């Protein structure tokens, strides 16, 4: 159950090597990986392609056309960089496997994760390749039900088994059922022009953060952009608040039964959320706003800060999406809270979003899946993800590659990770689905002022206890 802590640490280790690479190219702290990686990079894809190709050659003559369905979540403009990478991988894979057509099906993230995929999994007809989240409520649940393809032999065959920084959220009984596409942390983005205008410094302490929010609020600027129609959005902030008030261990403690939701320290986290809510620190009408609206609030200058995942950073270098805020955004982690438990520098760290594959594959589909994995999980694509999309790599990259990072936010994120000394994951990947579902309805009740922090915490604990009892 210490999985996610371990996970966070790998993220941090990765980031520190990254950082050192950024700082000094001649640093050989990770020589071992360095060599193997540079080898692959110099060879690029040409050579690594050959084994797979020879395998496929006999099939070429009798190449029956077939299609493989692929569900992705890169549907909005904000994800166009990631979509471009996916498109290239698809093209490459189709070229690699004779007869193959990959049928792309884009579905909005939340709809896919919380509506479509669960229903398809229950029905036993998921797409062949699909966007998948790690953790107890997603990948592990489906793996347990035998719906996911065991990838252990495939990644061993492709020689990438040991390249991943962390596969814990996709690993069940030593077998790997999904591959994360990148890593991320959640923290505050802020608008530099607005901060400058009101004389606010990037907050490093809790008091500074609340003072910043207060200043913005007094100037009729929403301190924190928020879109709570999808409850996972406010839950990001809730998660990190819990990580601060109850300590990084709390997130794994919930499903283990060692941390009660209604303990004073978790209640303190909910209370803080409620306090901000009452002070009007979040966007008005947030319960009617989607995730995309939150970004919109932020880039149009209606809000000064936004709590979001580091994956959002690529938006802020794109003029078309960020407008006047292009390259004018900073990122900081949540400062330590007064009387918080545990390491107050710890950060949220996730390697949870990636791809999973249906257990129900025909031989030719399996070939396609292998080719897809080979093309998607390569140093080249990982680096493109980092450079173009600002997504932290999920695989080990060479220092040389990482040194190419220029995006200030990505650099800042890496710095934060390097300094953190510990990490915690998101409770959406540690607790069971029914508990997570309750957290969604409870946080909205808190936002609407229908429940107090204590009531929310009690309700959560009740469902958690039921889940614990059921697990026994």
């Amino acid at each position: 159950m210490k999985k996610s802590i371990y996970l966070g640490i790998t993220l941090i280790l990765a980031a520190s090597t990254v950082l050192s690479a950024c700082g000094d190219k001649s640093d050989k702290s990770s020589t071992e990986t360095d060599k193997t990686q540079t080898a692959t990079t110099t060879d690029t894809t040409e050579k690594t392609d050959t084994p797979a190709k020879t395998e496929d050659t006999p099939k070429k003559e009798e190449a029956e056309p077939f299609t493989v369905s692929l569900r992705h979540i890169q549907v909005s403009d904000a994800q166009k960089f990631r979509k471009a990478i996916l498109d290239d991988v698809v093209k490459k894979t189709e070229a690699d496997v004779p007869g193959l057509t990959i049928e792309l099906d884009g579905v909005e993230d939340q709809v896919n994760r919380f509506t479509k995929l669960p229903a398809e999994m229950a029905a036993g007809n998921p797409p062949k390749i699909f966007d998948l989240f790690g953790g107890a409520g997603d990948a592990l649940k489906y793996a347990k039900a035998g719906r996911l393809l065991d990838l252990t032999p495939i990644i061993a065959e492709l020689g990438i088994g040991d390249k991943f920084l962390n596969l814990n959220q996709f690993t069940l009984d030593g077998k790997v059922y999904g591959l994360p596409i990148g890593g991320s942390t959640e923290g505050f983005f802020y608008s530099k022009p607005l901060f400058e205008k009101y004389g606010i410094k990037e907050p490093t302490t809790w008091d500074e953060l609340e003072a910043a929010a207060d200043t913005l609020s007094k100037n009729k600027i929403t301190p924190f952009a928020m879109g709570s129609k999808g409850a996972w959005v406010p839950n990001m902030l809730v998660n990190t608040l819990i990580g601060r008030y109850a300590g990084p261990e709390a997130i794994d403690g919930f499903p283990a039964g060692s941390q009660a939701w209604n303990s004073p320290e978790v209640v303190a986290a909910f209370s803080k959320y409620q306090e901000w809510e009452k002070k009007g620190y979040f966007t008005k009408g947030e319960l009617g706003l989607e995730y995309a609206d939150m970004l919109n609030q932020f880039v149009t200058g209606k809000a000064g800060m936004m709590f979001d995942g580091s994956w959002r950073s690529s938006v802020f270098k794109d003029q078309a999406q960020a407008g006047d805020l292009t390259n004018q955004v900073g990122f900081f982690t949540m400062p330590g809270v007064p009387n918080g438990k545990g390491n107050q520098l710890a950060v949220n760290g996730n390697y949870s979003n990636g791809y999973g594959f249906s257990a129900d594959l025909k031989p030719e589909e399996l070939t396609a899946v292998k080719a897809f994995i080979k093309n998607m999980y390569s140093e080249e694509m990982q680096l493109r993800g980092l450079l173009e999309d600002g997504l932290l790599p999920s695989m080990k990259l060479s220092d040389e590659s990482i040194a190419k990072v220029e995006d200030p936010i990505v650099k800042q994120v890496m710095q934060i990770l390097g300094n953190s000394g510990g990490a915690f994951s998101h409770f959406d990947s540690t607790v069971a689905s029914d508990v997570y579902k309750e957290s969604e309805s409870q946080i909205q009740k808190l936002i609407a002022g229908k429940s107090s922090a204590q009531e929310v915490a009690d309700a959560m604990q009740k469902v958690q206890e039921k889940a614990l009892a059921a697990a026994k």
Partner: protein
Amino acid sequence: MKSTLKNPYVYAMFVLPTLLLYCLFFIYPMASSSFYAFTDWNGLEDYKFIGFDNFTTAFNDPDFRNAIVNNMYFILFSVFIQVPLIIFFAILVGHVKRFQGFYKTTVFIPSILSTSVIGILWGFIYEPEIGPLNKLLSVFGIDPIYWLADTKWAMFAVLATNAWQWMGFYIVLVLAAILAIPREVNEAAEIDGASGRQRALLITVPLIRPIISVVIMLSIAGAMRVVDIILVMTKGGPVGSTEVMASYLVNEAMGVDPNYGFGTAISLIIFAFALVLTALYQLTLGRNQGGND
């Protein structure tokens, strides 16, 4: 000689395809629902029988009770607000001479459109910052209302959209009945000195009672069935303020933590409600109407 119309094989050929399809998609699902409603099947794992647990869970869940109440709002709103308005407008259209066809055609338009498109359309109308409704209200100095985000307003906003979609349909229905009233009846009343209002209330309304009763019945059935508009506009939110039984069913059975057993139990409950309402209706309003056909 008459054998061809008595031939059971020919008869079967005419009837069987329909019966097969009907049994497969009506009777069998209903029967299997009654079975799964007593299990905890989630599609992923093996199920076990849990007796009436699903039903007690449902009625113990404040969210479900809230959904029932919201369904009642739908019914009350349709019957006591929409229906009078429908009759009012139908009488108005029925008694004008010019533009009657235009009114009829126009008011009917929303009812041929897809509910989901209407949901999207009205989502924009209600948009708090750039939506036209708040822009219009701001002319009168009214602060932005967060129509779909405010637990106080969301239900009303959905009800209004639903009314916008369906009122025209019923108006046309009632209008057809009004136009079928023999002209002489009204003319006679006019000669007797009855005012427009008296004619409307004392002559027209009683004469169109059968169709009003049909409209009420259809409104109730529609209110029990409502789900598309909710899924598209609010998904039952914010905080369950627009959740109805059917959207609760969809969210529970197909949502974050799918549970088909629970979902089918909910559908049986909805069915029971529908039956009770139909029976109540037949015993009260529907009684003295006789057959409508």
